[in-house]
């Protein structure tokens, strides 16, 4: 398709940009993993800037608690697939580009096939299993990866798998070689997030994508940028290459396809039963059963059935309060509960049946409302 010079006039005019850079954007194929807080600004700016081919991967639906930061969506979109709501909105923003939606969760089964069709991948996901999965897949397929992540008022941005002028490239695993334990790092569901923060970090990811595609300026290759929006403390750190060869990580597609990233990130644990939200009500009514909420005392929503509240940080010293044989640990999103279940399994031993609520109270309420 002929470039619409009027639409892109104000950036084509830029010194150092021109029609040449605009043509590079038009022929670029960019894949955005996650159409949430980071994904929304990324998709809006990449669409507006005229990226020729954009892929969107997400299996989630729009919910009320998304709307304060996921500004692609309106109140009328609640319940719709994010990919479908995004497709409609972005299509009207710029009908001159191609948008492909994949309404699936990225996994070891579909990642290689999906990623192979694109030149550049943006990690806008919201969990460690997906972040490590993408880092490994991009390293194996040699695809540039623009990473963004947020925590409350702070964000991180980096560009991985791109060689600097010395021919040297780094990966997320050079920064954090192994995932943290479940519950160690809280996500937006658990810790909250200021709505504008993903807007800022996502916009930086989109900026890096445009710079990388057009080559107008060097990007955050082998660098980690951090920003705190409370005091505007900003820093850029150099990332060194670690010796990944001796780490227990996949290097071949076949090795990648045999990974279990939930186990790798400790989300699934041997010996601890995962209770799906649909079965929670019936299992919690079995005799000799107690529910332990390991969230902090001031976290909402509260459960509507009897439970014992022991925050994760105090679980070890308070575990003697537990007398029931069947223990179900719950939290907001199912990460601290698995950490809590592990602590209890270690202290209480095999005489107890320790389980946790998969996806947490958030998922439980979501399914109950459907």
């Amino acid at each position, binding site marked *: 398709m002929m470039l619409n010079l009027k639409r892109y006039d104000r950036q084509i005019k830029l010194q150092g940009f021109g029609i040449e850079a605009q043509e590079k954007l038009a022929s670029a194929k960019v894949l955005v993993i996650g159409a949430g807080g980071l994904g929304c600004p990324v998709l809006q700016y990449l669409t507006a800037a005229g990226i020729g081919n954009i892929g969107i991967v997400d299996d989630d639906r729009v919910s009320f608690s998304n709307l304060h930061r996921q500004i692609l969506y309106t109140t009328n979109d609640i319940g719709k697939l994010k990919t479908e709501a995004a497709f409609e909105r972005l299509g009207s923003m710029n009908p001159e580009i191609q948008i492909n939606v994949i309404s699936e969760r990225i996994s070891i089964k579909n990642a290689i096939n999906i990623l192979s069709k694109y030149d550049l991948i943006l990690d806008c996901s919201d969990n460690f299993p997906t972040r490590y999965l993408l880092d490994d897949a991009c390293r194996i397929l040699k695809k540039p990866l623009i990473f963004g*992540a947020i*925590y*409350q008022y702070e964000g991180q941005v980096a560009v991985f798998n791109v060689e600097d002028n010395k021919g040297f490239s780094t990966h997320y695993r050079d920064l*954090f070689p192994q995932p*943290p334990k479940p519950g*160690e790092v809280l996500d937006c569901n658990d810790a909250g997030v200021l709505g504008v923060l993903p807007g800022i970090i996502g916009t930086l990811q989109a900026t890096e994508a445009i710079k990388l595609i057009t080559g107008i300026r060097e990007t955050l290759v082998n660098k980690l940028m951090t920003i*705190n929006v409370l005091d505007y403390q900003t820093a850029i*750190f*150099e990332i060194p290459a670690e010796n990944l060869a001796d780490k227990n990580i996949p290097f071949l597609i076949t090795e990648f396809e045999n990974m279990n990233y939930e186990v790798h990130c400790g989300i699934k644990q041997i010996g601890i039963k995962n209770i799906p939200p649909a079965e929670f009500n019936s299992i919690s009514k079995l005799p000799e059963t107690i529910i332990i909420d390991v969230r902090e005392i001031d976290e909402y929503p509260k459960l509507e059935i009897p439970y014992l509240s022991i925050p994760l940080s105090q679980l070890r010293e308070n575990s003697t309060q537990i007398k029931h044989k069947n223990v179900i640990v719950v939290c907001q999103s199912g990460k601290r509960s698995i950490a809590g279940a592990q602590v209890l399994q270690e202290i209480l031993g095999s005489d107890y049946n320790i389980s946790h609520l998969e996806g947490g109270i958030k998922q439980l309420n979501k399914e109950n409302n459907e």
Partner: protein
Amino acid sequence: MIKIISFGRLKEILGSDFEFEAQNSDELLTQLNEKFPILKDLKLRIAVNQTIISENTELKNNDVVALMPPYSGG
């Protein structure tokens, strides 16, 4: 004196930026681990003057040490 800045949850544990005395990064971490035992359980990276380090690194007066955890949110 070395200036310590921390990020994310580490800021909640260590408090705001502060000054500290240590000869090298290993010694610094040992002392911080003693003062804040919960640190031992957390994954973190250390940067000295904006370069992330992989090995024990000598610290000089006025060096800035940053302690960073991974973030997962999106």
